[in-house]
């Protein structure tokens, strides 16, 4: 089956081709078992996050203390055991899903939104625009994330949104670099010139033709950033910049259990596993999406 041009009869009406493309992507996605597992886990997590308030009463079961039940090893009543203030870790891990998922996802979206836009501009308009954006990017990436966290949280107050902002901004440089590299490789392709020849405005070219073609490295970067965003919350919460205290965010749970690593390691093992599963789910889905979107790999 030679790679030469398709025989005429396949070039049927344009609508049909576009509709089937999405169907093809979904079909490929369904075919990829890993992606399906990832999607299932994520939907489960989203469900748990939304209905956490229904499942548990925040004050008594999540934030309530009973020192008498301190540091109980995992057993029947407390599947994951209890932490140093007597709170049930199993319920906190489930309840914490909303924070970690929220922080991880939102922070990455913030980073992506800013990063992709600047990256695309830098990649497309070479010369001065690129140099300025890339140098500003180098400057921004020099700021350590903890310093960024201190400033944003103290300037705007400690809240979950500010935490997302702090982590989001520190992930902007990576997105800018990844997008620029992808856009650079795509803009030199012939079809971009062909589009220019049709008189299409540059903004439309970038938005509808260049960025979709750069989606695969961006998707990979999104899934990776979600992982490091969730883990970044634990180092930030060490300095008290994380989610305000009683909230059971996985990163801060890891951090609180830090001094119990030898005596009660289950304090950090279960939040760690929760993070591992979430990160894996996002990456399996991201991987599946990347392969489904990449026409070259569709053979």
């Amino acid at each position: 089956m030679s790679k030469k041009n398709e025989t005429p009869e396949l070039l049927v009406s344009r609508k049909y081709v576009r509709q089937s493309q999405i169907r093809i992507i979904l079909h490929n996605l369904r075919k990829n078992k890993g992606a399906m597992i990832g999607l299932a886990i994520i939907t489960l997590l989203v469900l748990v996050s939304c209905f956490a308030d229904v499942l548990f009463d925040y004050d008594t079961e999540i934030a309530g203390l009973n020192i008498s039940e301190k540091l109980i090893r995992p057993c029947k009543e407390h599947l994951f055991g209890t932490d140093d203030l007597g709170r049930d870790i199993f319920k906190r891990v489930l309840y914490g899903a909303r924070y970690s998922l929220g922080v991880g996802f939102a922070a990455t979206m913030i980073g992506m939104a800013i990063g992709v836009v600047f990256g695309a501009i830098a990649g497309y308009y070479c010369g001065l625009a690129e140099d300025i954006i890339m140098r500003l990017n180098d400057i921004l990436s020099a700021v350590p994330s903890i310093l960024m966290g201190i400033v944003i949280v103290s300037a705007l107050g400690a809240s979950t949104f500010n935490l997302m902002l702090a982590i989001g901004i520190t992930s902007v440089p990576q997105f800018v670099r990844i997008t620029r590299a992808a856009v650079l490789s795509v803009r030199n392709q012939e079809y971009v010139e062909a589009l220019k020849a049709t008189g299409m405005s540059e903004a439309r070219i970038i938005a509808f033709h260049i960025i979709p073609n750069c989606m695969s490295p961006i998707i990979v970067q999104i899934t990776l950033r979600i992982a490091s965003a969730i883990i970044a919350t634990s180092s930030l919460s060490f300095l008290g910049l994380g989610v305000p205290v009683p909230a059971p965010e996985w990163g801060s749970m890891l951090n609180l259990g830090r001094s119990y690593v030898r005596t009660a390691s289950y304090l950090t093992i279960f939040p760690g596993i929760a993070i591992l599963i979430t990160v894996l789910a996002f990456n399996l889905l991201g991987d599946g999406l990347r392969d489904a979107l990449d026409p070259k790999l569709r053979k």
Partner: protein
Amino acid sequence: MKKLISLLLVLALAVSFCFANGASEGKAAPVAQVEYKDTAVIGFQTKTSSISPPTQTSVMHRLFFNLTHDTLVDYDEETSSLKPGLAKSWTVSDDFKVWTFVLRDDVYFHNGEKFTADDVLFTWEFAKDDGSTNATVKTTYNKIEAIKVIDDTTVEITLKNGDIDFLYTYSNESYSVLNREAVTADAAKGPGIGTGPYMNDEFVVSDHTTLQRNEKYWGELPPTKTLEFRFISDATTRLAALEAGEIDVCQGPNNTEHNIIRANDDLILYVCPGMNLTFLAFNSEVPALNDPNLRLAIAYAINDQEIIDGAASGVGSVSDGMWGFFTYGYYDDWAGAGLASYQPQNIEKAKEYLAKSNYPNGGLTIRMTCNSAWTVGALQIIQAQLKALNITVEVQQLDSAGFTSMTKAKEHEVVIQSAALTGAGGDMAKFFTAGNTANTATYNNEKVTELFKLAGVEKDEAKRKDYYKQIQLIIHEEAPYIPLYYAGTGVAYSKKVSGAVWNGSGKFDYSQVKVEK
């Protein structure tokens, strides 16, 4: 290079040692003679940043200065009395203004220079201008009017105004004597040259400090040649280093890992009652909190023991008064004075006071701020306990500089802090008199300020103690601060270690430490 030399030395020693044993093979086997290592390694956790005594006053720094330098007068913590240091004897004028010291003449600095009265004068002049950036040291030295060198072994210090406690302060290691020639020769390393039992060898900030024995020390020669202090900030790693035998002493192991130490029979755990008091401070400039009844209600509603168990894994002791139990003039017989002790928790009394306060049935929200991950746990427990009074607590954590800038600007409501208390009664004034950054309760009571001034110059012990008693009674009633607990400090060390002096303040004395092979 230095490590190589000391290695060779050790080898030589070891070899000679074996020969000695070998040679005396014939004779009856000597009494089980214990051999000691040449190096003792100590793992510590609080960062030190200078080897110059006038620049630092923190406990860990003073531990080092105690080894490398000497002061004119020493303070003996057991007997809490003064004993001769570089000065053999001293006399004071009646108005406690002019202090005359007779100095030892057999003391030499590490660089070989002889110790003379001129060095005392130089240290004062050096620290006064840019030799130190430490406010406490500079303020103490500013209290001195003049220092007169009478002859090589006599010096006279004249204060601006009389201070009975001057020697207690002047015995602090931060006022150790420096050598004029050494400092003028090298401003960076010069201040590190002292007269103490050990000499500064290597100093890498936040990594390690190595001290070599001063062979020509005027006092009792230490048994161990080299002391190596390794900065290991993570407690779990520090304990693991001790278990692996890399270090001989592990200062401040995790409270959560005390049973691991107890389970290991090569290690000894020494937990001493701490001198660091953890307390709540209510900013009286906040109208809602400027109400003693509310503060007392909260004081009685808090259960200290639960905080100790929850936040410090049970390592610590309940505190009942905003005054060091080891500080001069401590008074705690509250019943005798018609008052009730804050502990144990007494909900009815708390509700009683709450009823008399501006918030009879609670319903207010208080923002409690802390500056470290450890105290967050305590605040969460207080948060749960105050629910009984229908008071909601919002927990806020800031990093240390942000925290102090907030308290300095009086923008806080309630803060949880821990402070290292000392034996001197006068030192407690900084919490209760205006114009001090430690006075986070912005407490200003003329009577209390007056009483502190009187106690400062009162010669008669009974009268001074009575003044301090009156202060404590007023404070107990107004409760600007609520004392919570003394955090216990712990030390874990291998059973081969002996000769070290452990104490509550954390300023351990390693001058006579030795480690069996």
